[in-house]
């Protein structure tokens, strides 16, 4: 029985939240909807953990949806790369579901709660689907399922701030343009090869060699995904969406949505396109590296000057995505490992930070830094959580952020790009400034209100601290993250003949000795 179920784990992974979503509306009771959401996301998380355990040794699971054989049928293909991302998304989803109940109580009109849960489950379905599928067009469909529900989730913030509506609208316009670009690129790939299955695509592209259609497809897909993952300077939708969305949505988006987009980027760059052709590699080296560096600095500096905590964290996210992209575009194994490991670590850290902020909003109704003065005394658990996760953002030893930074610096030094290493540490020092502004306000300033602020409810403290402890745990024990990331990096590098690339790549730095 159990083995029969587990055999269908890849499908159930997405189907469970998909079916749970309409149930929430059908029953129409918000507490029941919450229970359904929690159960569905927990089940998804368990399946994800199972899939990760299966693939951690580098093996690949291929699942034919509905029994139709690929390349005609849609194939779900799980290896260490997406099993790891699935695990991130599903486990964060489960924690967020736990956290949501109290959080939306304050921020969303109770009549709309069931719709929140529905949209949340659809979003989860979409993100999991994007990650798990091995079919290029299917990626687009799931991407839009998640995006459409995300726009709704962001718009639900209108109960607290009407600007959530315009934020959602702008996100919709930008997101749709991105998705359409992506689908154009897929169209060109299909024209070129006559297939949509990623593994099949990769083979046929390799057989065809470099050509103009391929380049055009690459550029469209690159820009389209770049919009979705908020690659600088295509990040303009992100700060508003994160700051005006309900807190719990900010948590979920910051921890998962951009991460999944990064995964899609990885998948297309390495598995589908490969780096046999100088064009893609040169794009990364000459365009993405500078953009990533600019993102790391510009966004961090902008973050320093924000008066709203959520907005500050949003800009910090753009900067952190810069780190991930930088690691990826180094095109060597340590860099790729660094990028993937930071994908995970940043999801945990940023999730924890936004959860802490959500608790502040829950109790004092504001996320402005000046309103948080003295909160360290009044909400000790949440303030401590913020500090602990903030240290992770800076990259202090014994936090997950340090591990990311270690890998990333190692990767740049391996390439002999010491100036990149200096830029990385330079920008992480900017993180010290914006995190410490908040720490000073929370602990060293006199409280704003004389009336005592109550502690956050336990249902918020627990998931927040699970995230915080995870961010500390993965800073001490990197066995899981390190292994998953390096297996993933190996797989991606195998998928492409990356080792050959440097000779043919114009402008690429010489490989390290």
């Amino acid at each position, binding site marked *: 029985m159990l083995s029969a179920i587990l055999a269908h784990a890849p499908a159930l992974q997405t189907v469970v939240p998909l079916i749970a979503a309409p149930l929430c509306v059908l029953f129409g009771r918000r507490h029941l909807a919450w229970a359904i959401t929690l159960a569905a996301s927990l089940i998804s998380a368990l399946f994800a953990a199972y899939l990760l355990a299966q693939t951690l040794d580098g093996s690949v699971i291929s699942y034919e949806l509905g029994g139709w054989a690929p390349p005609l049928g849609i194939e779900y293909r799980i290896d260490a790369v997406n099993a790891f991302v699935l695990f991130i998304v599903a486990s964060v989803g489960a924690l967020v579901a736990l956290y949501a109940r109290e959080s939306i109580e304050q921020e969303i009109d109770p009549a709309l709660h069931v719709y929140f849960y529905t949209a949340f489950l659809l979003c989860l379905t979409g993100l999991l689907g994007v990650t798990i599928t091995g079919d290029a067009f299917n990626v687009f469909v799931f991407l839009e399922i998640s995006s459409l529900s995300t726009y*709704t989730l962001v718009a639900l913030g*209108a109960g607290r701030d009407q600007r959530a*509506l315009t934020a959602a*609208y702008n996100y*919709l316009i930008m997101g*749709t343009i991105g998705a359409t670009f992506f*689908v*154009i690129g897929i169209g060109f790939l299909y*024209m070129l090869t006559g297939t949509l299955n990623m593994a099949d695509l990769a083979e046929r592209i390799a057989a065809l060699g470099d050509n103009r259609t391929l380049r055009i497809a690459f550029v469209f897909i690159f820009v389209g995904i770049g919009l979705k993952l908020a690659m600088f300077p295509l990040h303009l939708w992100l700060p508003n969406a994160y700051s005006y969305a309900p807190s719990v949505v900010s948590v979920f988006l910051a921890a998962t949505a951009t991460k999944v987009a990064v995964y899609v980027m990885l998948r297309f760059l390495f598995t589908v396109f490969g780096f046999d052709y100088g064009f893609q590699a040169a794009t990364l080296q000459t365009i993405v590296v500078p953009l990533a560096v600019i993102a790391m600095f510009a966004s961090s500096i902008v973050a320093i000057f924000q008066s709203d905590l959520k907005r500050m964290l949003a800009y910090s996210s753009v900067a952190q995505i810069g780190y991930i992209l930088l690691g990826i575009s180094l095109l060597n194994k340590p860099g790729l490992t660094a990028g993937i490991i930071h994908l995970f670590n940043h999801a945990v850290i940023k999730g924890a930070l936004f959860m802490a902020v959500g608790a502040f909003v829950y109790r004092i109704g504001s996320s402005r830094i000046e309103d948080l003065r003295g909160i360290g005394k009044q909400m000790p658990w949440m303030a401590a959580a913020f500090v602990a996760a903030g240290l992770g953002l800076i990259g202090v030893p014994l936090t997950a952020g340090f591990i990311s930074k270690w890998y990333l610096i190692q990767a740049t030094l391996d390439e002999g790009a010491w100036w990149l290493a200096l830029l990385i540490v330079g920008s992480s020092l900017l993180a010290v400034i914006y995190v410490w502004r908040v720490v000073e306000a929370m602990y060293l300033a006199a409280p704003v209100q004389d009336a005592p602020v109550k502690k956050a409810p336990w249902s918020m403290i627990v998931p927040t601290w699970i995230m915080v402890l995870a961010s500390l745990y993965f800073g001490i024990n990197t066995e899981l993250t390190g292994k998953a990331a390096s297996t993933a990096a190996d797989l991606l590098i195998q998928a492409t003949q990356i080792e050959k690339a440097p000779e043919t790549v114009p402008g690429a730095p010489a490989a390290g000795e």
Partner: protein
Amino acid sequence: MFDDFSSSFIIQHYNYWMVIVLMMVGLYIVVSRGNLVKKIVGLNLFQTAVFMLYISVGKIIGGTAPILTGNPDEVYSNPLPHVLILTAIVVGVATTALGLALIVRINERYGTIEEDEIADIEQEIDRQESA
């Protein structure tokens, strides 16, 4: 020779040219118009252009609908892009519906659907908050 080139380049690829023009018109509307509804219209044009790109690629001149007739020499159009675009159209409709719904809400709260007026109102909110 130039004539040869241009005729083959433009006429044989006329479907692409049409798609490109339509796409750019759509994108231009999205970028240049301040009216939120018009932006959605532009977005629709933009998406439609992509649908046409897919559909025209699948079409074979002289081909029939892809129905099994038993004749192995039957020439038929590739159905797959058409099916894909059915999905994409659904996504497009959903996006439009959601966009319009958002515009209704924005109109309720802001009393306008003009981008610059909304920006003014938001600036006012910002000022009040920091005061």
